[in-house]
């Protein structure tokens, strides 16, 4: 009698490609042959998002598949090491269920395997209490044979060192969006330095190839030039100079890539010279606005300055957005 396992490998591959992760899990448990086949070929589980949240004594792993979401809760002190899953992530396996844990979907996740080629759309690490998580993740990223592919990284952390322990292990060709946030817990003495020095980050290939950057911590930068390849920027500079502002304006007018460059600043040095060089502003509510036309284009660069709230933006817009009585500088 003919059975599923008698069918050609090409058909099994096609079947696994069609199946969702639950079916793949389930098939894996049907018999030894299928288990070995699935473990060897590592079919794509259609994993789109990993979300790791660390709380006081629990760690939540949220795994978003194309069709559904699975949340696993790890509790400290139950049966095994809280960080067991890390090594598992490193060689493709996402979850090892630990005895005694409350796990929303324990049975199905016991031996979930991942294809190393799986492309994650987003990885969100939300650190709330422990620094250890990042060290562990770094270990397992290091152990991987290829860099993790994700288009977006969202790190919630208190320390730039932790960013440096993750970012270099992501595939730069895939990474488009970098978001570095502070955790949502209240500040305390553990919250680290007042500002982040980004010079080491700016050297990374991942930084240089990404297109969008958002950082919610005050940053001390190495060079403003390392921010001008992004199409979208939203940051807070601890300090910025009039010369930097002039560089931003000149480079943005010369290149096509930037769409919006927004920042807050804590200290602005020699800003007056820059603003004087822009000429008379158009005043709109609490903003001073200047408009510059891109060479041979219908688009303009709108420079906005909110002096009361210490914010600026350089924004590419259509010239139809310019108020009638404002001047567009050619």
């Amino acid at each position: 009698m003919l059975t599923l396992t008698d069918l050609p490998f090409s058909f099994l591959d096609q079947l696994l490609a069609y199946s969702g992760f639950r079916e793949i899990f389930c098939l894996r448990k049907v018999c030894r042959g299928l288990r070995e086949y699935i473990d060897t070929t590592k079919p794509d589980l259609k994993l789109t998002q990993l979300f790791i949240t660390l709380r006081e004594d629990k760690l939540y792993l949220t795994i978003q598949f194309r069709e559904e979401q699975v949340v696993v809760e790890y509790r400290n002190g139950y049966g095994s090491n809280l960080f067991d899953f890390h090594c598992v992530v490193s060689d493709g396996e996402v979850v090892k269920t630990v005895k005694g844990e409350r796990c929303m979907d324990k049975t199905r996740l016991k031996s979930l395997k991942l294809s190393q080629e799986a492309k994650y759309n987003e990885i969100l690490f939300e650190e709330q209490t422990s620094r250890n998580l990042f060290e562990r993740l770094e270990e397992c990223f290091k152990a991987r044979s290829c860099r993790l592919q994700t288009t977006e990284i969202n790190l919630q952390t208190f320390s730039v060192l932790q960013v440096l322990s993750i970012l270099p292990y992501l595939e730069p060709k895939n990474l488009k969006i970098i978001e570095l946030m502070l955790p949502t817990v209240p500040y305390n003495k553990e919250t680290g330095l007042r500002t982040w020095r980004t010079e080491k980050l700016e050297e990374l290939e991942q930084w240089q190839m990404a297109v969008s950057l958002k950082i919610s911590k005050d940053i001390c930068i190495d060079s403003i030039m390392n921010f001008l390849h992004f199409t979208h920027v939203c940051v807070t500079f601890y300090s910025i100079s009039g010369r930097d502002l002039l560089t931003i304006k000149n480079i943005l007018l010369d290149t096509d890539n930037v769409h919006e460059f927004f920042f807050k600043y804590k200290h602005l040095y020699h800003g007056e010279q820059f603003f004087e060089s822009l000429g008379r502003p158009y005043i709109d509510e609490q903003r001073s606005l200047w408009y510059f036309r891109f060479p041979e284009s219908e688009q303009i660069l709108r420079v906005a300055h909110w002096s009361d709230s210490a914010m600026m933006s350089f924004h590419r817009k259509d010239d139809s957005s310019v108020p009638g009585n404002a001047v567009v500088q050619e």
Partner: protein
Amino acid sequence: MSVEPEVPIVQVEEVRENPVLYKIISSDNHVFTISEHAVKLSKTLWDLITNLGLTAENALDNPIPVENVNGKNMETIVQFCERHKYDEEEPEYTNYIREFVLPEWDRQLLSIDNEELFQLILATNYLDIQKLMDYCCRVIGDMAKDKTPEELRIIYGIPTDAEDDALERSASDSPGPSG
């Protein structure tokens, strides 16, 4: 009273139909005719026809023997190919997209028991008909939805590991040709 001019009534199907027909003989000597557009869905058969140099003139005089496919499967395959011969080329197979609903006609055609379906898949694989493989894959894949491993084992006719071991043991214990 006006008189309608007499014009021959031509069915659209006939206009589109390519008159070239091929003959196929299954492993159990059933003979099938299949149109050129339909047979092109099978890469294996079309390669064979091309290599044999069959033309509109000599096609019906040179039946193609297909040793690996019996009449029952060949009948299903010919029906499928004739049904889908004018289908537009589908975009690359995106196998995990569940929104795709198998057309009712095809679901009916593939509503056979699993043993028969597996036989059909083997035949389809041999004849290299990608579209029918895709459809069979969907039918088999959909069976796995919301099932336990034990249920799947029964649905797919797979022996348990213990049964498998027993089978292997009995095979190795049985005397060989010389024993």
